[in-house]
C-alpha cells in the first residue's frame, strides 16, 4: 500500500520566528487590555475593521505576497507565527482572516495582473473583507451539485442563484463565488464551474443574515438576481473552478484556526482550576489536552512547511482538521467538568459565558471547510478504500 499520508517535521525559522513572535505578542498585549474571555472566545468570528487595519499596518496581512502587490515577501512559516499568536490571544481577526487565508492567495495564484494590483494591496492593508460563496441551499457537502449559474452576456457575466452559510457576507466587501458556467454531465459533475470576484454592493444582490443559536448572526444567505460581473472579474480560467477551490481548501483545513478555535478558554480554565490543591484526575485531563494541542501544532506546522514548499497536502490537511475539531469540540465540556461551571451566569464576559458561547458554535467546527464525514471520506480514499 502506498503511503497515504506523510508528515515531515518542520521547524519554524528560529531567529525570524522569535523576533516576529515577540513583536506580535507586544502588539497584542497593548491592544488586548479591554478584551474579556468571551471576546477572546469569538476570535476569528469577531469582525473589527480597525483592528484589521492595525494588523495591516504592521505588515501581518499578505505576509508572503510579492512586495509589488503590497505583500511583505516573508515565508509561510513566519506567517504561521503571526496566525497562531493571533488565535491564541483570541484577537478579533474576522475582517481580514478569509481574505488573507484564502481569497488573496487564490487571486495571487490564478488571478490576472489587474486583479492582483487592484485587490492584493488593499487586502494587505486590512481594508478589504472577503467572504467565500460555495454552499447553496441545495448544495452543501455535495458541492458539485451547485446550480447558481453565470450566463455569458455582453462584456461579462450575469449571475443568478443563491449562496448560503456565507460567513460574514453582511460585513464583507467582496465575495469569491463558485458558479456554474456550463452544464454538468452525468459522469463529470465537477466540470463547468468557475469562480468570480463579486462586489457585494452590485445591484441585484440581497444579503440576509441568518440568526443562529447564539442569538448572533454569522452566516448569511446571499441571493443573486441578474447580477452583472465584468469579464475582468473571473478568477482563474473558465471551467477550472473545481480544481481551484480544492487547492484553496488545503489552506483552509490545516491552519492553526483548525485546532485553536476553543483555545482562549484554556488559560482561564487552568487559572480557575487553581495552581494548588487540584485533583489528580484534573491534572490528567489537562495533561492529555496539552498533549493533543502540542501534537496538533507540530502537525499543523508540518503542513505549513509542505505548503511553503509548494505542495498541496490535502490528505494531511484532512487528518489535522479531523483531529483538530475533535479537540475544539471537547474543550467546552472539559472546562465545565474541571471548573464546575454554574448553569447560569451574570458576567457576560466571564469564563462561563465564553464556554456557553463556544458550546453553541462548536457544532459548526466539524461542518465548516468540509464536514467531518467528507474529511474522513477523503482520508479513506487516500488509504485506498474507495
Amino acid at each position, binding site marked *: *500500500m502506498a503511503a497515504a*499520508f506523510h*508528515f515531515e*517535521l518542520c*521547524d*519554524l525559522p*528560529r531567529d525570524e*520566528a*522569535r523576533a516576529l*513572535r*515577540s513583536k506580535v*505578542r507586544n502588539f497584542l498585549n497593548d491592544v488586548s487590555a479591554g478584551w474579556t474571555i468571551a471576546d477572546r472566545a469569538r476570535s476569528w468570528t469577531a469582525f473589527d475593521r480597525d483592528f484589521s487595519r492595525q494588523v495591516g499596518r504592521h505588515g501581518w496581512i499578505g505576509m508572503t505576497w510579492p512586495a509589488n502587490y503590497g505583500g511583505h515577501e516573508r515565508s509561510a512559516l513566519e506567517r504561521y*507565527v503571526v496566525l*497562531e499568536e493571533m488565535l*491564541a490571544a483570541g484577537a478579533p481577526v474576522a475582517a481580514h482572516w478569509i481574505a488573507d487565508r484564502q481569497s488573496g492567495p487564490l487571486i495571487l495564484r490564478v488571478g490576472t495582473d489587474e486583479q492582483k494590483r487592484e485587490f492584493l494591496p488593499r487586502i494587505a492593508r486590512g481594508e478589504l473583507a472577503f467572504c467565500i460563496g460555495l454552499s447553496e441551499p441545495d448544495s452543501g457537502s455535495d458541492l458539485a451539485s451547485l446550480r447558481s449559474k453565470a450566463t455569458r452576456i455582453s462584456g461579462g457575466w450575469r449571475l443568478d442563484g443563491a449562496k448560503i452559510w456565507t460567513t460574514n457576507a453582511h460585513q464583507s466587501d467582496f465575495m469569491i463565488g463558485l458558479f456554474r458556467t456550463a452544464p454538468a454531465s452525468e459522469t463529470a459533475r465537477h466540470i463547468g464551474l468557475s469562480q468570480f470576484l463579486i462586489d457585494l454592493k452590485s445591484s441585484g444582490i440581497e444579503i440576509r443574515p441568518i440568526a443562529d443559536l447564539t442569538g448572533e448572526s454569522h452566516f448569511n444567505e446571499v441571493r443573486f438576481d441578474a447580477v452583472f460581473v465584468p469579464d475582468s472579474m473571473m478568477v482563474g480560467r473558465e471551467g477550472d473552478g473545481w480544481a481551484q477551490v480544492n487547492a484553496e481548501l488545503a489552506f483552509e483545513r490545516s491552519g492553526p484556526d483548525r485546532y485553536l478555535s476553543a483555545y482562549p478558554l*484554556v*488559560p*482561564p*480554565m*487552568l*487559572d480557575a*482550576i*487553581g*495552581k494548588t490543591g*487540584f485533583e*489528580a484526575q*484534573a*491534572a*490528567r*485531563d*489537562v*495533561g*492529555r*489536552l*496539552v*498533549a*493533543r*494541542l*502540542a*501534537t*496538533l*501544532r*507540530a*502537525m499543523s506546522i*508540518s503542513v505549513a512547511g509542505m505548503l511553503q514548499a509548494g505542495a498541496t497536502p490535502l490528505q*494531511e490537511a484532512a*487528518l489535522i482538521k*479531523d*483531529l483538530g475539531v475533535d479537540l475544539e469540540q471537547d474543550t467546552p465540556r472539559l472546562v465545565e467538568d474541571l471548573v464546575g461551571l454554574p448553569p447560569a451566569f451574570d458576567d457576560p464576559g466571564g469564563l462561563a459565558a465564553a464556554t456557553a458561547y463556544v458550546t453553541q458554535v462548536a457544532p459548526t467546527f466539524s461542518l465548516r471547510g468540509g464536514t467531518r*464525514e467528507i*474529511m*474522513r*471520506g477523503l*482520508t*479513506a480514499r*487516500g*488509504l*485506498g*478504500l*474507495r
Partner: protein
Amino acid sequence: MDLAALLGDQLERLFLDHVDRNCLHAAESGIWPAALWSAVEDFGLRTALVPEAAGGSGLGWSEAGAILQRTGRFAAPIPLGETMIAAALLARAGIAIPEGVLVFADGRALKVDDGLIEGRLPAVAWAHAASHLVVAAGPDDDTRLCLLDLRHAEAHPLRSIGRDARDDVVLRGAKPVATAPIEAAAAVGILELGALMRASQIAGALRRVMELAVDYANTRQQFGRPIGRFQAIQQSLAQLAAEVAAAEVASAAGWRARDKSEAGLGKAGFEAAVARIRCSEAARLGCAIAHQVHGAIGVTDEHMLHYFTRRLWLWRLEFGAETWWAEELGATVLEAGGDKLWPLLTRDDPA
C-alpha cells in the same frame, strides 16, 4: 544515501525476511531469536547512537527514533532500542560498552550505600536476555550512571499482555562494574528516553495495524462487496489513520526536542511527555478500531493482528504509564498557570 537511511533499509529487509509469525511465536514461547539478534549486531546497530569518536555510528536521537519505529512496525522481538539507548548512555558518560544485550531502567528508587546498590526494579524489559543493566542511581548531589552485571542480580520472570520477556530485577548490595557522575536531572532523562522509545515503537506498530485493517477491509467480502466499500468502515479507518498520524508526529517531535536539548537548546521533558501521552492514546483508540474492523478473525491466535495490538497495549504502560505522564504534565501546566501554557507550547522558538 545517508547512514541512518541505509541502516533503516537494511533493518527493514532483515525484518521482512526474519520477523514472521513463527519468529514472534517462538520468541513469545521464550526462545531467544539468536540469529535475528546476531544479524542486527552485524549491522553495527548496537552502537548506532554512540559518537563516532567512541567507535559508534554517531546517529542522532531523531534518527534513532526512525529505527525504533521500524522495530515497532515489525514487532521485532529483540531489545534493540534498549541496547542502543543503554550503549548511548554509557558512551556519553565515558563508560566502556560491554558486549551483548543491554537494558536500562529508571533507577531513582534504588538505594546506594557505600557504592553498593540495593532495591527492586519492576518489570524491566528483556532483563533476562541481557548481560548488563544501565541505571542512574544515588542522591541528588551524587547521582551516578551505573553499569551492572546482571549475572549478579536476581531476575524474576513476569507475564505480560505483550508476552515479550519482562522481569522484576532485584539488586542486593550489587557492586556496579563501572560508574560515572551524571546530573540528577539526567536520571529523569533516562525515563524519558524509555518513554520516547516506546512512543516510536507505538507509532510504527500502529501504522502496521492500520495497514492490516485496510488490507482486510479491501479483501473481506460481505453483502456482496468488500467491507471497505461501506462508509461506516471507511469512517472508522479514517479515524485510525488520524491516530497513526498523530503518533508519528508526536514521537518524532519528542526525539527532535531531545536532539535540541543535547545541543544545549533547553530541556526535552515536555515533548517526551507529550509524545508518551499522545502515542499511548493513539494506541488505545487505534487498536480498538483495528479489532472492530477485523471482526472475530482479529482476535484469533492465527491472525497476525494480535502480535501488534498486544504489544501496543503493553507499551502504553511502560516507562511510566500514560496516566502517570498525563498527571505529571498536567500538574506542571496547572502549577505554572494559564499565562504560561502558550509560551510552553511555542517554546521551540521562545520569545
